[in-house]
């Protein structure tokens, strides 16, 4: 049965996963540009991309019911940093990651007005506060949290020395006045150089395409974006020993 199937993918066309990563701005700069060029000349892949992100699903009764259930269940469990559990010898480090009694994260803050992002670094099983300009190593894991001054839409992007732009978080309604731990951690690869993280706090969900293109145009630097307040954090990744 396997070999009788029609080949699902034409020569030169991206995989469904790669299309999804393109749509989510998770591809490196070069790969993103290559994909954009391919899409401009391949109607089949353009159709596949449209199909992939067809928003009609979100209007279905099942999707609405599930969304309501997720809203009910989200954040119901105690906050912590479970990703540490995936790392060896992280149990002790977990204590270091606990929030302070006042609710303030004890990681470095990239601050402007009251919007901030914080980062913690897991290195060799130990957690430390990350700070703007800090040195990190390949294989380190980063965990971000953010606080906003007022209700806003939030997004966080990372841009590495190779020109790869990653989208780490997109939250359309970030409630003000409390720290929100972002859902995924970042494992650093072995590309040495600057890792620039850009957080935007916007009055309304920004145009993701325009925003990512602006970050790319500035090689990871974003001075400003209409309707958004921008905060950034730079880490320096050393060469693996």
């Amino acid at each position, binding site marked *: 049965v396997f070999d009788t199937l029609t080949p699902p993918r034409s020569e030169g066309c991206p995989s469904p996963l790669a299309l999804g990563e393109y749509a989510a701005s998770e591809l490196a700069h070069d790969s993103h540009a290559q994909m954009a060029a391919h899409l401009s000349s391949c109607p089949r892949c353009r159709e596949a991309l449209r199909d992939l992100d*067809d928003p009609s699903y979100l209007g279905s009764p099942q999707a609405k019911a599930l969304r309501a259930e997720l809203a009910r269940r989200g954040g119901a469990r105690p906050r912590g940093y479970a990703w540490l559990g995936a790392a060896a010898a992280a149990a002790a480090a977990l204590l270091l990651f606990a929030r302070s009694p006042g609710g303030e994260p004890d990681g470095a803050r990239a601050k402007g007005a009251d919007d901030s992002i914080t980062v913690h670094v897991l290195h060799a099983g130990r957690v430390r506060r990350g700070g703007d300009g800090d040195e990190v190593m390949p294989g380190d894991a980063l965990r971000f949290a953010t606080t906003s001054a007022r209700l806003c839409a939030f997004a966080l992007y990372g841009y590495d020395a190779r020109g790869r732009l990653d989208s780490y978080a997109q*939250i359309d309604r970030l409630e003000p006045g409390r720290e929100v731990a972002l859902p995924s951690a970042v494992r650093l690869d072995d590309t040495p150089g600057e890792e620039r993280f850009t957080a935007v706090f916007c009055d309304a969900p920004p145009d993701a395409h325009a925003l990512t293109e602006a970050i790319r145009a500035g090689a990871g630097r974003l001075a400003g974006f209409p309707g958004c307040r921008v905060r950034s954090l730079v880490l320096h990744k050393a060469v693996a020993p």
Partner: protein
Amino acid sequence: MSVSAAELDALFRSHGPRVFRRARRLLGRDADAHEVVQDVFLGLVERPGQLELRDGVSAWFYTATTHACLNRLRNMRGRARILAARGQPSEADPQLEPDALVQLRDALAQLPPPLGEVAVYTFVDGMTQEEIAPLLGCSRRQVGVLIERVRAWGREQEARCSTR
């Protein structure tokens, strides 16, 4: 950790439609695809650490959806057997789809992990061994070995059918 309601909602709106599309493609029925979306997102609420330390959120949803679909296919096959034993019609409707897809789903339902995953990535998605390796966390060479095992399993099944 937990995932806040706002984070979950953002993940659902950006990845929910893709999870649904993929599940419908693999399973063939909207009702099953809706249940897979539910499995994936409620599973994320229960075990948010699953998202951690992945190269990308898209890759996590992609593999999680594949696992959930294969589990459902395996369960559906078991249910179909029970219904058949009771003399009731199964839920699958082969009239709706080409024979090859129906046969493929039947084969996927019988393949144990990670062969089922390898079969989906290779024969349904058309991914290369290099693309599959990071999804399974193994080498390209190991992926090649697994694909050969899938093919050998398929030949064995064909031989069984032809001798019946």
